[in-house]
C-alpha cells in the first residue's frame, strides 16, 4: 500500500509539465551519450551553451514577459541593433568601454519605448513589438549598411571566445547568474507574484492596487536592456557584426519559453520550466549536429516538439485517466 502511494506520488510528479520535461531531457542526454563519444566532453558541453548563449539569456526575461500575458517580438532586432550600434561606435573611434555603455542605454531606451506604448498608450504588445522588430532592424542596417565591421579590441573578442574561469566563458557565467537572480525575483518576490497576477487578469490586478502599467514598463525595459546585452555578447563571440545579426532569433527564444510550459495567455509557467526547455532544445540540437543531422530535419524536430508542447497539456492527461477509471468502475 505504501509502495503504491510512493509510486502514485512519483507518477503525479511526472504528470506535471516540469516532470515531463525532466524525463524528456534525461532521455535525450542518455541518447546523446550513447550515440556520440564526443557529447560528454567538456569542450562540447561548453560549445553546446555557447552556440545559443545569447538566445537563452533573452529567453529568461521573455519568460517574465509572456507570464505577464504580453509578447516581445523585437528582441532579435534589438540584439542586432545593439551589436551594430557597438560596431558603428567602435568604428567611429569611440572608446570601446564607453561604446558598451551607450549600447546598453540604447537597449534600455528601446525597451522603454516598447513599454510606454504598451503600458501607457494601451496598444497590444504584438503590434508594438512587431513595429519595433522592423524599426530596430532597419536602424541596425542603416548603421552598418552592407559591410561587416570587425577587428574589435582583443579583450572584447576574448571575453566572448575564451574561458574566463578555467574554460568557462563569461557569457555562460552571466547566464547562470541571471538564472539564479531571476528565479528569486519570479518565484520568491513580490514583483514575481505581481507578474503572475497581472498575467492572469490585469483588471483584477489593478483593482487590487497593483500599478500594472509601471510593472509592464519595467518588464519591457528589462527585456530591451538584456537583449542589448545579449547583442554585445554575440558581437564578442563572433568578433564581427553585420546588419543581419540575430535575424529571426525571436522565434527560437519564444519557442523555448513556450516549450517550458509558459502559457501564451499569461498567468502560468515557471523559470525552471524555461530552463528545462532550454536544456532540451540545446541538447537535442547538439546531439543531432554530432550525428550529422542538420538543416531542415533539425528545424522539423524542434517544430514537432513545440506542437507537442502546445497540444499535450490541452489533452489533459489526468481527465483521460479519470474517465477510464470511471468506465472500469461502472463495468
Amino acid at each position, binding site marked *: 500500500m505504501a509502495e503504491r502511494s510512493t509510486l502514485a506520488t512519483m507518477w503525479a510528479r511526472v504528470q506535471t509539465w516540469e516532470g515531463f520535461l525532466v524525463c524528456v531531457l534525461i532521455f535525450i542526454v542518455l541518447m546523446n551519450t550513447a550515440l556520440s563519444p*564526443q557529447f560528454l*566532453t567538456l*569542450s*562540447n558541453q561548453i*560549445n553546446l551553451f555557447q*552556440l545559443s548563449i545569447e538566445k537563452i539569456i533573452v529567453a529568461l526575461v521573455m519568460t517574465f514577459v509572456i507570464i505577464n500575458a504580453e509578447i516581445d517580438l523585437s528582441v532579435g532586432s534589438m540584439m542586432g541593433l545593439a551589436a551594430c550600434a557597438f560596431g558603428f561606435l567602435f568604428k567611429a573611434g569611440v572608446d570601446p568601454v564607453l561604446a558598451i555603455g551607450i549600447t546598453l542605454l540604447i537597449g534600455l531606451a528601446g525597451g522603454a519605448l516598447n513599454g510606454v506604448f504598451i503600458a501607457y498608450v494601451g496598444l497590444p504588445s504584438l503590434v508594438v513589438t512587431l513595429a519595433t522588430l522592423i524599426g530596430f532592424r532597419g536602424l541596425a542596417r542603416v548603421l552598418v549598411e*552592407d559591410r*561587416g565591421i*570587425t577587428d574589435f579590441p582583443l579583450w572584447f*573578442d576574448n571575453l*566572448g*571566445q575564451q574561458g574566463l574561469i578555467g574554460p568557462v566563458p563569461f557569457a555562460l557565467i552571466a547566464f547562470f547568474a541571471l538564472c539564479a537572480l531571476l528565479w528569486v525575483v519570479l518565484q520568491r518576490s513580490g514583483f514575481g507574484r505581481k507578474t503572475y497576477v497581472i498575467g492572469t487578469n490585469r483588471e483584477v490586478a489593478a483593482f487590487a492596487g497593483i500599478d500594472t502599467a509601471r510593472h509592464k514598463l519595467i518588464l519591457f525595459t528589462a527585456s530591451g536592456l538584456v537583449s542589448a546585452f545579449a547583442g554585445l555578447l554575440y558581437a564578442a*563571440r*563572433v*568578433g*564581427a*557584426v*553585420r546588419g*543581419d*545579426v540575430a*535575424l*529571426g532569433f525571436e522565434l527560437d527564444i519564444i519557442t523555448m519559453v513556450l516549450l517550458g510550459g509558459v502559457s501564451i495567455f499569461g498567468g502560468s509557467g515557471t523559470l525552471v520550466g524555461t530552463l528545462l526547455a532550454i536544456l532540451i532544445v540545446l541538447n537535442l*540540437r*547538439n546531439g543531432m*549536429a*554530432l550525428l*550529422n543531422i*542538420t*538543416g*531542415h530535419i*533539425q*528545424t522539423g524536430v524542434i517544430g514537432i516538439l513545440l506542437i507537442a508542447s502546445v497540444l499535450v497539456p490541452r489533452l489533459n492527461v489526468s481527465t483521460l485517466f479519470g474517465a477510464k477509471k470511471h468506465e472500469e468502475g461502472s463495468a
Partner: protein
Amino acid sequence: MKTLMTSCAAAALLATGLSTATIATAGAQTMLDGGESVDMVLLPKFLGILVFDQANEGAMEAHAELENPGELLFLGPTPENSVAGQIEIMTTAATQGQGAVLLSNNAGDQIVPAAQAAQEAGTRVVTWDSPIPSGDGEDVFVAQVDFGSIGVVMADMAHSILGGSGKMAVLSATPDAANQNAWIAAMEEALEDDKYADIELVDIVYGDDQAEVSYNRALALVDQYPDLGLIMSPTTVGIQASAKAMQDEGLCDQVRVSGLGLPAEMVSYTMNGCAPEFALWDFRDLGYLTYYTAYGLATGQLTGEIGESFTAGRMGEYTIEEDPSREGARRILMGPFTVYTSENVEAAAQ
C-alpha cells in the same frame, strides 16, 4: 627507410638555405596519392539550392576517384538560419575532428572564431564560391573565376550575338547589389574598346532578382526600345525570366537574351535560340577542385603555401597563389568562364 632518408634530405635542404627550399617547393608539382582516409564536410550557404547540390556532386566524384575510405558529408543550415547554422556546423566539425570543412561562406567574418577554433583542432578550412572576407581562419579559397574578367566575357557574348553592332540593355538584380554593379561596370569598361564601337548600351534596369518583376521589366524594355537587339542579365534569375518573357511574346527573333545563367534552367531557351549564348562557371568542377584541394591539405600532402602546385584529377594543374582582392589571403583560381551554346548546354544541364 626511404621515407626517413627523404625527410632527412629535405631537412638538410631546409638547413642549407631557405631560398633553395622555396625554389624546390615552387617547382614541385604534387600528384596526390589516393586511398588515405579523411572525413570531410561540405558546408554550403544553405540547403535547397541547385548549384550547391551540383558542387556536392563534383565533390562526390572526386571522393570516389581518390578512393577515400573516409566519409564526405553534405551538411548545411536552413536559409533562415544560415549564419548561426554555419557557425554551429563548423564548431561541431571541429568537435568531431573532421579532416576538413569545405565552406561556401555566408556568415562574413562572423565565422572567423569558429573557423580558427576548427583550425586549432586540426581541421583544414577550404572555402569555395564565397570566401571569408578577412581571410582569417581560412587555409585557401578556391575561386570560381577572376571576377574582373566577367566584363570582357559579357562584352564578347554581346558582340557575338549582335553580330558586331546593335543596341543592348542590362537587366540586373537590385541597384545596391555590389557584385552585380562591379560586373556591369567591368562590362562598360570593356565596351569602350574599339572592337565594340557599334554596340550601344541603352539602359540598365533592375528586376530585384524576382522572377515576376524581372519578367515585366524585360517586356517593358522591349516596349521602350523597339530596335533593341539584346538583353544582358548578369543574374541567374533575371536571365531566365527575360528569356521566358521573349519566348512567351514570340520576340526571340528580334531580341536575344544573354548573361549569367544555369545550364539546367537555360537549356530550352538556348536550344530554341532565345538565349543563344550565356556564361557561368561549372559548380560541379568547383566542388571537384575544392575536394582535391581539401583532400591534399587534410592528408598533409599539400601544405597550403603560396606557389605550391598540384594536379586535380581530370581538371589538371593548379597553383596556390596570393589572392589579389584580399590582402594576406591565398586562393586557387579555377579559371575561365564556361560559355554555353547549343553545342554544350545539353550535356551541362544534366
